[in-house]
């Protein structure tokens, strides 16, 4: 049997549907108005994220492997004790090829005792066997297309407008997807907070006008830090790009890192 709806009844139903659809936006507006007075400002006072683009560069020719950067990072950011590092130093040793071998380079050895934070002792192989050896400081590669951000299922990892790739510790559920996604191994799961942690470019320092702790303590200025949006031509970061042949790590992955290296060998990954 076909039911008959009165014109009045139909208008009422349409009204109810429209009211239902509008409820969300209306409630949102009300809530935004209420919370406006309560919420804190988005960033540090006087700091406008969109007006900065922080980048770092590393000149491996200048790194002496003292480990002060890794040590400073650990204490500046209260990184948990143990094998957890937001920045660390790797020592690359490329051996001479075996006698009579038709190869130009021998085996590559990489070590990083305690992330290099207490410096490096003598290499495990005799100096005569070494063709070439150097230190490579590592940290977040500041990808423009960061795989970790794409992997995060809850929107806890994000690309800040000022160039830092950050983690919202209140949103992180500690699933570890980002740790697997990072091709540079720059993240770890904190045994203290059980959330993912990584280099923040010392966000609490750069928003106060200080340099990141690792850059501050680097005795040879192997680490260069700057703001692409507010740098004069004589700024160290501009000078770095002018004076060096630079490269990024794993460019084939399309992550488009903003961390550039000078003076590293093809074996570095």
């Amino acid at each position: 049997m076909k039911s008959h709806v009165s014109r009045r009844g139909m208008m009422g139903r349409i009204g109810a549907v429209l009211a239902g659809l509008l409820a969300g936006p209306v409630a949102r507006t009300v809530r935004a108005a209420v919370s406006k007075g309560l919420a804190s400002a988005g960033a540090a006072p006087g700091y406008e994220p969109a007006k900065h683009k922080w980048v770092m560069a590393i000149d491996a020719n200048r790194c002496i492997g003292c480990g002060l950067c890794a040590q400073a990072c650990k204490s500046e950011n209260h990184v948990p004790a143990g094998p957890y590092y937001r920045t660390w130093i790797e020592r690359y040793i490329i051996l001479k090829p075996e006698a009579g071998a038709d190869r130009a380079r021998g085996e590559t050895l990489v070590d990083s005792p305690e992330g290099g934070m207490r410096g490096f002792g003598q290499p495990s192989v005799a100096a005569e066997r070494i063709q070439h050896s150097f230190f490579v400081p590592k940290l977040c590669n500041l990808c423009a297309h960061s795989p970790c951000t794409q992997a995060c299922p809850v929107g806890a990892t994000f690309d800040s407008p000022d160039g830092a790739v950050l983690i919202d510790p209140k949103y992180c559920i500690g699933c570890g997807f980002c740790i697997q996604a990072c091709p540079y191994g720059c993240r770890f799961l904190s045994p203290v907070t059980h959330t993912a942690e990584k280099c923040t470019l010392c966000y609490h320092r750069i928003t106060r006008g200080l340099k990141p702790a690792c850059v501050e303590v680097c005795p040879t200025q192997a680490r260069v830090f700057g703001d692409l949006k507010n740098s004069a031509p004589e700024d160290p970061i501009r000078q770095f790009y002018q004076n060096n042949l630079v490269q990024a790590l794993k460019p084939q992955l399309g992550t488009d890192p903003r961390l550039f290296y000078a003076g590293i060998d093809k074996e570095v990954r």
Partner: protein
Amino acid sequence: MPPQTFRLLLLVVGIVVTYSTARCFLTPPSFGQYGWFRGEALAELGAREPVYAGRKACEECHADEFKKLVEHGHKTLSCEACHGAAQAHAEDPDNPGVKLDKLHFSVCVRCHEANPSRPKWHKQIVVKNHYTIAKCTECHVPHMPEEAP
């Protein structure tokens, strides 16, 4: 409208309303302020207190030593590279309880011990062959490495 269509419509409307209301209350107000994340997280991450004060803070009180440093070979060094983190000292300079690291032979050797991985331009010594009977500072002035004490 057949009653079953009407009930289905009512259900859909109910779900949409419940979802948008819940979403509205569960989404933090600063979400989307800068992008697909909670904008307040930036302030929270920036709220941590620094541990290293930075060279400028040291210069404010120790201008004499600072001047020596920047005019000599160790000019690229931060004070805190050798003296250790100094924010606590910079905030409360008169407190004798807040002390900087006591400097030791290991501070010099950390950078200057010969190592085949170190770049050749960097000045290095083999410690066990390098006049082991004296302290480093008997012959070298850390703030002015080219000068004799």
